[in-house]
């Protein structure tokens, strides 16, 4: 196979892409198939499980916040679960994922350990970022989850750089980044989209359009509100999908990944969604109507997907109950893990300022 020949970095010229890419995609799909649960409905129930886990995990986080176990800013993802789960199921474990400060859902979907997340939010040494980061800064390089970035849009250029590296290294992976519609107004969005398209790197840009950037509604953030149309300004293929529908998101994400792998070009996926909760725990929600929130809650992706699986006979009420128990147990374990975690000694404060500093 062509890509096995290219052992070192940077050896091959740009020309190989065209013949080489469809092969890569085939191999990728075979690998994904192996990773996926195989018995009928198993994969579907797994996705449902992930959405439900995110939901319950976040509810528990809110609870721990009011108990002051978690401090700082806590941004909940509740309502948007179909996006993280639907997009991530299209990725392989080796793919890089970058996210924002509203990233618990993406981290869980990428299979980050829920105990490590909870411990991180407590600020404990056992947290995924050794407690240094808290809720906004989840990192786990082992599972290729690169944060947890709290400067809005600040991760988009990095994202392109990681994809550039993977292209130069001829790793057959893509880099996926999540960001809000508010982030798309930043100059970094513009620069990152242009660079990705110019360099033809495998990036999946996922814009989670939840209609608000803190309290600023879409119409005050963007003059042009069909965000997917922004792809055209960079010759980037783009698509908008109903982000409240797991099936639609999954299909769109699969298509996007296929496009990226076969064309070696970036892709811009807009997921139209809604957060049911305030922006963070500091938000009095003065800027939107309770009624609007209630309307959106009717589109809750979790019951919708449950119903779909029940209709398809891939899920029973009993299985839902079991899942709930399992999730309850997992979250309980996570909380105990966090509660029992340890505080980093103050003497270690300056650790991690430079590599190889005193451990």
């Amino acid at each position, binding site marked *: 196979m062509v890509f096995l020949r290219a052992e070192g970095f940077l050896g091959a010229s740009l020309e190989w892409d065209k013949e080489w890419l469809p092969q890569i995609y085939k191999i990728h799909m075979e690998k994904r198939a192996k990773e996926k649960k195989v018995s009928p409905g198993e994969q579907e129930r797994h996705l449902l499980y992930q959405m439900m886990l995110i939901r319950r995990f976040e509810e528990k986080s809110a609870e721990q916040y009011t108990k002051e176990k978690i401090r700082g800013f806590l941004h909940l993802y509740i309502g948007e679960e179909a996006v993280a789960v639907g997009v991530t199921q299209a990725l392989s474990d080796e793919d890089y994922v970058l996210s924002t400060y509203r990233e618990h859902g993406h981290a869980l979907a990428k299979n980050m350990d829920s105990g490590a997340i909870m411990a991180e939010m407590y600020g404990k040494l056992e947290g995924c970022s050794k407690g240094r980061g808290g809720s906004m800064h989840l990192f786990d390089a082992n599972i290729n989850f690169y944060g947890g*970035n709290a400067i809005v849009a600040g991760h988009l250029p990095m994202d392109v750089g990681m994809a550039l590296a993977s292209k130069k290294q001829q790793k057959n992976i893509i880099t996926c980044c999540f960001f809000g519609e508010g982030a798309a107004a930043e100059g970094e969005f513009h620069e990152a989209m242009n660079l990705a398209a110019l360099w033809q790197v495998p990036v999946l840009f996922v814009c989670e359009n939840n209609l608000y950037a803190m309290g*600023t509604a879409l119409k005050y953030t963007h003059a042009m509100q069909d965000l997917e149309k922004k792809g055209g300004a960079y010759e980037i293929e783009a698509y908008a999908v109903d982000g409240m529908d797991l099936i639609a998101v999954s299909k769109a994400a699969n298509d996007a990944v296929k496009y990226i792998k076969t064309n070696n070009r970036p892709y811009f996926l807009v997921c139209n969604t809604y957060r049911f909760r305030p922006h963070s725990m*500091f938000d009095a929600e003065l800027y939107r109507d309770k009624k609007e929130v209630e309307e959106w809650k009717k589109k809750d992706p979790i019951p919708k997907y449950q119903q779909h699986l029940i209709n398809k006979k891939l899920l029973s009420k009993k299985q839902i109950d079991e899942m709930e128990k399992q999730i309850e147990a997992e979250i309980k374990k996570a909380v105990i893990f966090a509660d029992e975690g340890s505080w980093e000694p103050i003497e270690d404060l300056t650790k991690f300022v430079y590599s190889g500093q005193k451990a």
Partner: protein
Amino acid sequence: MEMVKMTYREALKQGIREALLNDERVFLMGEDVGHYGGAFAVSKGLLQEFGAERIMDVPLSESGFVGAGIGAAMAGMKPIVEVMTVNFSLLAMDQIINNAATLLHMSGGQLNVPLVIRMGCGIGRQLAAQHSHSWEPYFAHVPGLVVLSAGTHEDARGMLLTALKSPDPVILFEYTFMLNMEKEIASDAGAMDITKAKVRRDGKDITLITYGNGVYKSLEAAEELSSQGIEVEVIDLRILRPMDEETFLASVAKTHRALVVEDAWRSGGMAAEVFSRIIEKVFFELDAPLQRLCGVEVPIPYPRHLEEASVPQSQDIVSTIRKMMGL
């Protein structure tokens, strides 16, 4: 003089409100200053009172709206631009330094930029490494800028009003840590001078120079030390650029000892500059080496105990001064 109790947040808000009432060229622009009510609820209610032309919500685009503030100021308005926190100001650094601070000079004196940029600054809410910095030294380094630090409630209430009279760009630091703190201030508190440092407490034994979050912490430490027989003179720099050195030089000439306290990172912080002026101007007055208590050189970590350990606390001040006094 009648005194009223108010939070630092309320003091800030009253200042902004008064500025809007005083001059119709003034408008407030920033992320979430309107419908959301301000990220830290400082501007809550102002949109309802003054309308969307005076209280402008802007998209996430720090370089864009800070630059727009510069343009509006050049063209005769008096914008107050809020950069939610100093951490995000790096995105607007080019506009602030290469344009706002430079245009007057580059145009041979033609274009002044009467703009005020307010920024939340510092630690205090466990917001971790991308939301907790104390970057006053960055701005204080730049010729052409006026840099103010509101370390007390009266300055939170009144600095803005004077800043808006400046023909040149002003960076006004406000402190997240203090937002909920209640203090008494004069009920008729208004515009504050923005040219001089202030002696916040008289003392004869040692000079403590500070600003921002350091002010109340230092006053607290001074109280405690006073009960131990050490009288600390506490000076609030207030204006970080152009720095008023007379006030602290006079104090050092009196006490012959000085400590500088700040939350900003140690290397290249404001303390280093204060040291330098003391050395250059009153070196022979010194009875002991100058000392500084600064932020530890680390991106601020999330857990409370580490966050607290990363900036000087009032107990650190007490023990350092005791050591400096040979106790």
